[in-house]
């Protein structure tokens, strides 16, 4: 046996580095990632680099981009649009991210319980999920925000509560598949408790599609927030891209740049997130890996 120990050990590629090399080959996803990193850095450091005040009137209203030293012009109250975009990025991204987290927490919990316990638990939870699925999402979230007030946490919660069903269904289907695999049986045979089976044995193996879905969820949560803000259901004390569009929407015909610019910001961000999500899907989905 001792001669075997000196044999050079050929390391196979780990799943993570394999996924990364798949992702890197996807040019669209890489472009999306670069743009996304740029946007996130802008949201974090932008306010320090560009010390404009988003809520202060600094110049004559309706001045178009590039005129009078304001790169993106001013809005209907004469506020600096670039400062608004920079400050709005933080709120927009935070809402997108935290709504996606709410979605994942609710969806994974319900999907995991339904897929693991089967039987009556599954029936009840899946009917519950279907109930939420058929609710008109925008209307339902508007009701929540209208009832409980338009604060950031409430908006986040409203978005999360209406969009967790997809995650729940994906989680359940993965659990149904994985719970029958041999290593789950082997874990059972070594005396692992149900809670550990669910969250330490099955869940890590179910993660790839859940990660992809939640990445896309960030994008749709941003769109959702924009929709709510456009309808005026937003916290007037914080600035988000949707809110810039919403507050300027009366002047869309006279000064279209005031809604076009934040609209573009949302468009680029969501597109970048979608591209990254698609890239993750290709990289994490073993069935697509052979291509």
């Amino acid at each position, binding site marked *: *046996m001792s001669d*075997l*120990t000196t*044999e050079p*050990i050929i*390391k*196979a590629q*780990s*799943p993570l580095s394999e996924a990364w090399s798949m992702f890197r080959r996807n040019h669209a996803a890489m472009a999306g990632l670069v743009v996304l990193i740029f946007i996130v850095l802008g949201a974090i450091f932008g306010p320090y680099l560009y010390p404009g005040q988003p809520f202060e009137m600094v110049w004559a209203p309706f001045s178009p981009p590039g005129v009078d030293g304001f790169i993106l012009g001013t809005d209907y109250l004469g506020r600096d649009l670039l400062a608004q975009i920079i400050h709005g990025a933080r709120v927009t991204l935070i809402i997108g991210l935290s709504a996606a987290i709410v979605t994942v927490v609710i969806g994974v919990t319900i999907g995991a319980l339904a897929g693991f316990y*089967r*039987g009556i638990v599954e029936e009840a939870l899946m009917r519950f999920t279907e109930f939420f699925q058929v609710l008109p999402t925008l209307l339902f979230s508007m009701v929540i925000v209208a009832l409980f007030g338009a604060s950031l946490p409430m908006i986040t919660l409203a978005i999360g509560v209406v969009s967790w069903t997809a995650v729940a269904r994906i989680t359940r289907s993965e659990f149904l598949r994985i719970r029958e*695999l*041999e*290593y789950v*049986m*082997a*874990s*059972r*045979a*070594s*005396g*692992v*408790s149900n809670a550990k089976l669910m969250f330490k*044995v099955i869940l*890590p*193996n179910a993660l790839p599609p859940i990660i992809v879905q939640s990445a896309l969820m960030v994008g749709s949560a941003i769109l959702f927030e924009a929709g709510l803000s456009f309808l005026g259901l937003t916290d007037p004390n914080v600035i988000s891209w949707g809110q810039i569009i919403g507050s300027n929407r009366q002047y869309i015909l006279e000064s279209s740049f005031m809604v076009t610019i934040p609209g573009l910001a949302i468009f680029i961000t969501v597109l970048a997130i979608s591209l990254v999500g698609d890239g993750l899907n290709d990289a994490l989905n073993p069935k697509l890996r052979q291509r």
Partner: protein
Amino acid sequence: MEPLLKVENLRIELSTRAGVAPVIDDLSFELGHNESISFVGESGCGKSMTALAIMGLLPEGIGKVASGKIIFDGEDLTKASEARLRDLRGNDISMIFQEPMTSLNPVYTVGEQIAEVLREHQNLSKVAAHNAAIELLDAVRIPNPKGRVNDYPFQMSGGQRQRVMIAIALACKPKILIADEPTTALDVTVQAQIFDLLRDLRDQTGTSIIMITHDMGAVAEMAERMIVMYAGRKAEEGKVQQIIEHARHPYTKGLISCVPHIMADPAFEREELLEIPGIVPGLAEFGQDRCLFAARCNMVTDKCLGARPPEVSFDTGQNAACWRAEEV
């Protein structure tokens, strides 16, 4: 001395769409301390179900112990709580599975998976469990255990993975190791190594082994006693050597004559390799009051079709459930 494991008149029922079928029908056997027994039979004879019943892992909602007892160390496992069974599993009774390629969790390193069992059952600290995992990898003869302990299952070959499975199963020094066709998915040369390993580990730890297989060669190599199962019933039981010399049940006889012998001289005339005609009956036929092997048996009489044959004991220690056991 009390046997370590005593199964008494075990009956396991499986609910299928067609109705309730007894996959295990009135099975009794004993397993002594430091003893190896082997369950033999074709696919679908209830070998794996017996193993799962001992582990308390019958398919939920489908299979259940209808009657009988499984007494382990004086405790009836059919009445034990789920929490108690969880304590026993992996600690006192362990199991290794058929498919080493898929029996390890792909997202954890092999070291972590071994350490996990130790932390769960023996309350070892993280560091102690990790070191114990390295020792166990060494014990199952994985070269360079210090380097391999942080490998993921996909970095190992089938034989190495089965060794890791054995390491996990033996981590807590269980009293019983159930091996469900542990070498079916492996190369012949690797099979021999795994058998060697299991034998050596048994000698070192004193673990009793229940091996499930359909490979007569494996039985001869691994076990002292064997139980031949057919359609959920015990067909024959006895010492391996005696059964191979003189089987008392036509089914056992058929199984033994199915095994080819390698001959040094190809010119030497070979005995014709026999097969057992037909297949194992479907679940719907299980539990009928007749000999279930009758349809495939070349010694069948009217009596075989009329009633289930009782077990006949021989002074060699053999037991056979056949009406014509004396004549076989």
